[in-house]
């Protein structure tokens, strides 16, 4: 009866109430792994405790390890008590854990999927999960194509949309999205054979960080920056992602990966895109990602036979980092004594478009640097004409605006100011605004933010296929040049800002790296 029909939206249509996703179930492949216990389930627990998950929600872990539902829950509880020690509540856990399930199964076998399908149907009945499914690929990336194929063959890829008894089907892919352009393209073809791009969520947790999103906020919610954000005012840009840590126990992984694949292809390229992109029409998935892809397309191709003029790779030797003596990379566990794997990369990228013509983007990412620092430094042109004499302007440098992502999130601007007193001496002064200090509230964990977006069906902060491929496309010639022998990896002492070759990369252009 039309007159008496009231929909839930009436109570929800309220700006003070948070958006809560539709009922659904999340299937995690590779659920016995570290990511599930350390990141995914704690993030889901937080969402549940904070009233941001629907009542009708369930998680199904799937992997080859034999475990009962209760074993799985006990394992997750243990992890949760460790990672959420101060927020753990027995009652919240009890109600949350009822929605956690585990299916042991080999993701290479069809019967696993038949069993999964039946199990999900049962959950729809028992938990009211409404046929909505999220398939989270957290297993080894070599299994991704197999899992996707089986899901497709079992008909679990179908996005029924508004159909009766049907729900959505979404696929989450953890990085790495391939090892190079070719494998990324292959992976995308394999996945897209069964899932439409709108169903695919490639996750790079970096984009879930508040601090990274703040780059967008700073650029596009402040009218004063945009007019000078171009080649007329900017001389060059330096993007630094420095870590003081070494590789720890991840030697085997790192030997296969290296800094270019581990950090540059994803995190650094995202920062480059957010820094260089045109203002999107709206903060929505297509507008934002379209602009990011345009940046990647505009990056000038690095010639494979002249990669050395654009790219430097380095590897740390032993040294001292903040008072601690540390081993060299080749002495680390599971690392070859003649390893050529890079722990440091610097690149010179040119963005060939109207805005950035002639403005180099210098990028560096490395391990065992003197300190942890992620920042974007915008170096402005010198003033066109100097009013003051040489001695008066000693110590006066061009303006630099630094967007610091970590550790102290904020913006600093180096400006020239008059030294008090007679005469007209002008010196550079740093104006430092720690905008993080204006909001000391604890930022939600990156996974928490992204999982919620995923369940709400908002892919804005996820990577689109052409973005992943675009980033690989830029780096492919460099990787080829390095794998074809090329020059030896340059060495740098742990606790320094990288090899001399990296300094030369800028020196050739009459510039130098700034000290973060």
């Amino acid at each position, binding site marked *: 009866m039309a007159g008496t029909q009231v929909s839930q939206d009436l109570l929800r249509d309220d700006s003070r109430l948070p958006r809560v996703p539709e009922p659904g179930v999340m299937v995690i492949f590779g659920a016995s792994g570290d990511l599930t216990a350390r990141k995914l389930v704690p993030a889901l627990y937080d969402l549940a405790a904070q009233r941001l998950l629907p009542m009708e929600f369930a998680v199904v872990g799937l992997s080859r390890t034999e475990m009962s539902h209760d074993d799985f829950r006990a394992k997750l509880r243990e992890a949760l008590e460790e990672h959420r020690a101060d927020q753990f509540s027995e009652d919240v856990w009890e109600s949350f854990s009822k929605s956690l399930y585990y299916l042991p199964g080999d993701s290479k076998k069809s019967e696993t999927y038949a069993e999964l399908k039946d199990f999900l149907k049962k959950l729809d009945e028992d938990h009211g999960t409404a046929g909505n499914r999220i398939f989270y690929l957290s297993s080894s990336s070599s299994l991704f194509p197999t899992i996707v194929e089986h899901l497709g063959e079992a008909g679990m890829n179908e996005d029924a949309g508004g159909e009766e008894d049907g729900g959505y089907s979404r696929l989450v892919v953890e990085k790495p999205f391939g090892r190079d352009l070719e494998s990324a393209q292959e992976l995308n073809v394999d996945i897209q054979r069964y899932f439409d791009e709108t169903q695919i969520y490639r996750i790079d947790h970096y984009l879930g960080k508040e601090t990274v999103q703040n780059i967008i906020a700073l650029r596009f919610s402040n009218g004063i920056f945009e007019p000078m954000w171009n080649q007329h005012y900017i001389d060059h840009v330096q993007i630094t992602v420095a870590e003081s840590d070494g590789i720890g126990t991840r030697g085997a992984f790192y030997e296969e990966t290296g800094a270019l694949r581990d950090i540059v292809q994803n995190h650094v390229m995202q920062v480059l895109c957010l820094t260089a992109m045109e203002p999107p029409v709206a903060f929505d998935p297509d507008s934002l990602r379209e602009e990011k892809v345009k940046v990647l397309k505009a990056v000038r191709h690095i010639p494979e036979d002249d990669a050395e003029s654009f790219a430097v790779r380095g590897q740390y030797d032993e040294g001292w980092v903040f008072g601690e003596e540390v081993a060299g990379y080749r002495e680390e566990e599971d690392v070859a004594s003649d390893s050529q794997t890079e722990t440091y990369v610097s690149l010179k990228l040119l963005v060939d478009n109207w805005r950035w013509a002639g403005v180099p983007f210098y990028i560096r990412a490395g391990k065992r640097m003197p300190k942890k620092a992620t920042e974007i430094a915008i170096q402005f042109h010198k003033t066109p004409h100097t009013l003051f004499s040489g001695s008066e302007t000693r110590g006066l440098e061009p303006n630099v605006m630094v967007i610091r992502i970590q550790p102290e999130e904020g913006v600093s601007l180096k400006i020239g100011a008059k030294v008090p007193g007679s005469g007209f001496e002008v010196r550079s002064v740093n104006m430092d605004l720690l905008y993080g200090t204006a*909001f*000391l509230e604890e930022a939600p964990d990156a996974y928490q933010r992204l999982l919620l977006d995923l369940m709400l069906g908002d892919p804005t902060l996820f990577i689109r296929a052409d973005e992943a491929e675009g980033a690989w496309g830029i780096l492919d010639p460099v990787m080829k040049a390095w794998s074809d022998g090329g020059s030896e990896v340059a060495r740098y002492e742990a606790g320094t800002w990288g090899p001399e070759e990296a300094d030369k990369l800028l020196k050739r252009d009459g510039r130098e790296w700034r000290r973060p």
Partner: protein
Amino acid sequence: MIGESRSSPGSGAMTVEQIEHQFAQLRANDDGSPGLRASVVNLVVVTDEESAGRVTEIVSGLSGDFPSRAVVLISDPEEEHANLDFQISAFCSIRGSGQVCAEQVIVHAEGPPAHHLESLAGPLLLPDLPVFLWYPADFTVDSPEFEGMVSLADRLVVDPAAAQDQGYCLSELAELLNRDAPDLGDLQWVSLSPWRGLVAELFHPPERAEKLGEIERVEILHAPRGEARSLLLAGWLASTLGWKPESVSREENYREVSFSGPSGEVTVEMSADSPDSALQHIRLHSGDMSFQVSRHRQISEARSTVTQGGEVVAERTVRLGSFEPGAILGEELHYRGRDDVYRAALRMAVEIMDL
């Protein structure tokens, strides 16, 4: 000139410049270099001597999440002689290489100046930032002091539960909605947010959403001090679901309101028998189904339950969040703009009281 030079027998003359200078000194780093100030709002509080300690404690506690210029006005207009006293403090925290400070000035105003509080608060506000005016206790809408203060504010924040007569306070607030007043924030309404979210969540699945149109009876159990909260909750349901109030019956600590809903009569029973929690539970009945949100044995948690024919079909326990005054005020400081859902709920709550 008002706001520039003020005399006070207690602390001597103090100008706006002197106050700003003292703030700058308090912000300085250990080595004497200028300290940073981070501010997102101006928070002006009007209170009395009795509540001053508690209020300043709440404001100081907020300085972490909402660094602000807080101006706490302790007003005693009954005193015969004019007297002004200023206490200046800054709350600094170490951030990176320096410290960041939020500031608080406590102004004791006695006698005639207490009638012109806006002349004291106005010059102390930081430019370009929104002004939240918080009345933690009772206030009189028609007093000239109130009008003067409201003229400074972008948002007025009140707490009907702190009023002697909570019902009357809601009526006063509803009256404000008809005036050219700043946006209104109500801490009782803020406290209801998690409850409202949980109630809305009970009807999230489409098959249960249909039941919203068939609700016959609602039970709300609250403490006597939760009267305003309970009325706003009932007002919210009624205004959102299109129920029209028809009649009311009252007993001590009990109110039963009849509404005409889209599919028949709806009864809302509000009982003030809860010994401790301002709001203890809400139950909504529709046919053989019941929907309940109740405080759990852990006071900070709530349990949502859906039953059909007496059998539990869905349940879960979640955190309700903190109901500490500081946390609630902090929540309100997040909000900007007109809250139309609240306005409708408030008007309905007043309509219920006026039956």
